[in-house]
């Protein structure tokens, strides 16, 4: 058996999650919940300034607080501080209250230094340098294709625009953290992570023990969205505290305040873009100058933070002639970490806004303009289906032509995500009673992986899924990669498939029967003298592939007197190859869209230019979409079994903010060029507020892009090496 069966019995059918019962009864144990014997509470002491040098911390005062069992420094003093909230020390105590008393007691001596926390300031020569050795702008990453200058010259129509998106925070409901037991020799961590093996490697490395002596468990975790791959300072400090107490388990979970400072973000993006089309409305030329900002150190140093500040350009409906010039800009703020399709939502917002601008210049329906330029048959199909569903032909109006105070608008955007599956291994234990246990060292970050495992096995073995127990989330199980990149399903499903095929062979061999699937299974297993184990791994082949597409449509109403944007309806058409479980797949689509609503309308990590702090380190002023902000979402899934399994966590998030921005621009007849689109910006774009913050931000944006353009002529040594 080498490919998915033509007739599916268990896959592509809506199935409830196998861990649903545990979650709805409160029995599911997250890292936050694990309470091993003798556990201690722990908290982190953080830098109260955006830049400076910490010369002293009164650790003794912390240790004197009753109930405190250990205090450790995060790095030796004096310590350079490069962002507000940087880890300085950590405390473990018998109670949370004692921890907080200790934090209050440990006064920090810090020599404050000038800082820069706003991207559009950081690019200018007068701004403070985050690092003395070089300026805040990096070397460029350039790409050229064809002859963009000539093609632009030749174009019959050109449009130009400049756009920006804000820093967004992952804000998972369960904060980052671990409960770690480390006696100096053996380490056990219950981790809220997307990658048990990555955390194991990180902690073992930091503690100087062999990998064989470290184990990480993640049975349940409360969301990560890309920010929970590394062990982080938070993991390392928990291990050090545990060791300092002689091996007592230490629960170090971040506070919501901490989450906003130091465990990653989606970089902000700034770009000037230009597009040229020929007389047939086909795109022929594209130019982009831009930069992203991933905090200090270009996104590379938050103890495993990996998230450069680049964003894709010219990737949807690509022009043959293109010039793209991108840089990274540094500020005194927490480092970026990969965030659900890194770079793509801002990149698509920029590209798709420009597409609508060009459609307007060509006096063409924006959907028609896309179909004319979209060379992807799958995505074209999705655009057509979505357009029909939302009633595009009947409802679309030219920008700003909706009558009345409440203006209606329609917008759309496309998606592509091309990451394939990869390294994953699984083992199958077959019991003589026919029951089966599958072990795989992957993790379920909310996507339904723990349900995928028994369903895939049931499909291959052709037995009742209730006979199959899937066990995941433990480094004692066969290696599987971290859950990110939308790679989990296309990695794990083939590995489980392979292990089950090998199990069938093994059972056949031992039982002496030929085909042991389905109704023969129990009989064949009954012939086993003891449980047998078969291994399997992901292999490149027909079981999974790459390249998931999508198209999303949004209908809005905008109150032009208050600036309030009311989302009326969203239609999303997506593919992910063979749909393993349409019910959990629809949850994924909803999730990506709702996160996109946040990016489009509410989310913005705001730095204070006066004090250098994060101004909104909470759920109150860093605003996530609430129940009442979410419209009817109409999801259509295309099932393409012949393409094998594809992941979908990211493609479903990529186009949403672009589609919303286009719908708002269509409603108003003017475009808000920076995300998030707030009522304040709408009123400003409509000319009701004079020379306000938004108008100034657009001039600042232009000046910053101009400056970044000029910087190419500066002596090379003033540019930072941070990779875009």
């Amino acid at each position, binding site marked *: 058996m080498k490919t998915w069966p033509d007739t599916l019995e268990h896959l592509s059918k809506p199935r409830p999650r196998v861990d649903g019962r545990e979650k709805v009864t*409160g029995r599911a144990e997250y890292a936050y919940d694990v309470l091993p014997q003798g556990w201690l509470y722990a908290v982190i002491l953080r830098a109260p300034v955006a830049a400076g040098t910490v010369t002293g911390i009164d650790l003794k005062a912390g240790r004197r607080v009753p109930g405190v069992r250990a205090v450790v420094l995060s790095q030796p003093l004096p310590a350079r501080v490069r962002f507000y909230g940087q880890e300085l020390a950590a405390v473990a105590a018998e109670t949370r209250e004692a921890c907080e008393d200790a934090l209050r007691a440990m006064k920090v001596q810090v020599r404050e230094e000038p800082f820069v926390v706003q991207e559009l300031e950081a690019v200018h020569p007068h701004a403070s340098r985050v690092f003395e050795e070089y300026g805040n702008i990096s070397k460029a990453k350039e790409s050229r294709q064809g002859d963009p200058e000539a093609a632009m010259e030749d174009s019959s129509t050109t449009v130009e625009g400049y756009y920006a998106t804000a820093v967004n925070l992952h804000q998972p409901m369960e904060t980052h953290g671990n409960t770690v037991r480390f006696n100096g020799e053996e380490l056990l961590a219950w981790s809220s992570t997307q990658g048990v093996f990555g955390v194991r490697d990180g902690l073992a490395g930091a503690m100087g023990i062999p990998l064989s002596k470290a184990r990480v468990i993640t049975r349940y975790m409360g969301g990560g969205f890309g920010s929970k791959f590394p062990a982080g300072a938070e993991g390392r400090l928990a291990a050090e505290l545990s060791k300092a107490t002689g091996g007592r388990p230490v629960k170090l979970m971040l506070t919501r305040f901490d989450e906003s400072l130091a465990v990653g973000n989606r970089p902000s993006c700034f770009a000037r873009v230009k597009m040229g089309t020929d007389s047939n409305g086909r795109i022929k030329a594209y130019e982009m100058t831009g930069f992203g900002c991933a905090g200090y150190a270009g996104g590379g140093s938050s103890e495993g933070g990996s998230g450069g500040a680049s964003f894709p350009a010219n990737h949807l409906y690509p022009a043959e002639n293109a010039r793209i010039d991108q840089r990274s800009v540094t500020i005194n703020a927490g480092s970026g970490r990969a965030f659900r399709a890194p770079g793509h939502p801002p990149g698509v917002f920029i590209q798709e806004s420009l597409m609508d601008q060009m459609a307007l210049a060509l006096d063409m329906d924006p959907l028609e303009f896309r179909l004319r330029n979209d060379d992807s048959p799958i995505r074209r199909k999705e655009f057509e289906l979505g357009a029909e569903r939302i009633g595009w032909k009947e409802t679309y109006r030219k920008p700003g032509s909706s009558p009345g105070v409440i203006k209606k608008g329609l917008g759309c955007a496309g998606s592509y995500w091309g990451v394939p599956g990869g390294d994953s291994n699984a083992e199958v234990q077959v019991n003589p009673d026919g029951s089966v246990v599958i072990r795989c060292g992957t993790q379920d970050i909310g996507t339904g992986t723990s349900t995928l495992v028994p369903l895939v096995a049931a499909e291959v073995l052709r037995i009742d899924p209730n006979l199959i127990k899937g066990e995941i989330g433990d480094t004692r199980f066969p290696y599987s990669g971290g859950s990110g990149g939308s790679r989990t399903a296309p990695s794990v499903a083939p590995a489980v498939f392979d292990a089950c095929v090998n199990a069938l062979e093994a059972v056949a061999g031992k039982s002496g029967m030929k085909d042991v699937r389905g109704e023969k299974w129990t009989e064949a297993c009954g012939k086993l003298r003891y449980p047998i184990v078969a291994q399997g791994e992901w292999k490149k082949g027909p079981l999974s592939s790459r390249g998931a597409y999508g198209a999303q449509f949004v209908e809005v109403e905008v109150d032009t007197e208050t600036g309030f944007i009311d989302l009326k309806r969203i239609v999303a058409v997506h593919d992910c190859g063979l749909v393993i479980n349409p019910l959990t797949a629809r949850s994924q689509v909803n999730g990506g869209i709702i996160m996109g609503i946040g990016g489009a309308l509410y989310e913005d990590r705001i730095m204070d230019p006066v004090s250098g702090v994060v101004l909104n380190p909470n759920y109150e002023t860093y605003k996530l979409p609430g129940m009442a902000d979410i419209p009817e979402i109409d999801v259509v899934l295309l099932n393409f079994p012949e393409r094998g399994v594809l992941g979908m966590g990211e493609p479903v998030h990529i186009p949403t903010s672009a589609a919303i921005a286009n719908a708002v621009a269509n409603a108003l007849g003017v475009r808000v060029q920076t995300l998030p689109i707030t009522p304040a910006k709408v009123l400003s774009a409509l000319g009701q507020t004079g020379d306000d913050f938004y108008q100034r931000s657009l001039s600042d944006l232009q000046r910053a892009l101009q400056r970044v353009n000029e910087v190419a002529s500066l002596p090379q040594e003033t540019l930072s090496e941070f990779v875009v």
Partner: protein
Amino acid sequence: MKPRKESIGARFTRRTFIKSLGATAVTSAASFAEVSASEMKAAREEMPLGPGAVPVTLRVNGKVLNLELEPRVTLTDALRYHAELTGTKTGCDRASCGACTVLLDGEPVYSCMKLAIDAQGSEITTIEGLARDGQLTALQESFVETDALQCGFCTSGFLLSATALLAANPAPSREDVKHGCSGNLCRCGSQPHIVHAVQQAAGVKKAPQVELIPMNREDLA
């Protein structure tokens, strides 16, 4: 508004009188004719508790829990770390996300902003108290059936808000569900399925099927 005088210094009060009797002397103060038994009882009720740990009695899911807690311990922490009922979650500790929602006398509250000592005398219902003898409520079943959860961290809070909503409004519209659960955040994006789950459990509307369109290469040509 009248202008303010200087701040008033210590005054002789009923409490200072009681204090002056000494702790054990309180019970033998019947000889002081002008202090009635009910006044004594009232005075004792007004005695300050803490700041150290004091006995706190909580009625949780129909059971009595006898805990020793400092007054500053929140109800969330009392439940999670002192009673080891970890189904109630900490999401923000600032009354902004609803992960810590419990019912107090049937009404949803943020347990993170409730002192445990202040929750005495109320009937507290946590997620662990919904199912009876392993039998899930219709709402819990419906959450599982309609996939109204992903990572599950917000689920306890939503279930408690929705349980209270259905008790007050057995046939909620979509808007009712949104308004009733507006104090609960979800980052995974389960809100649409949560609306399905609540309306399905209420018998108002069955959750819609997922639209799955089979495709192959020929269909694209």
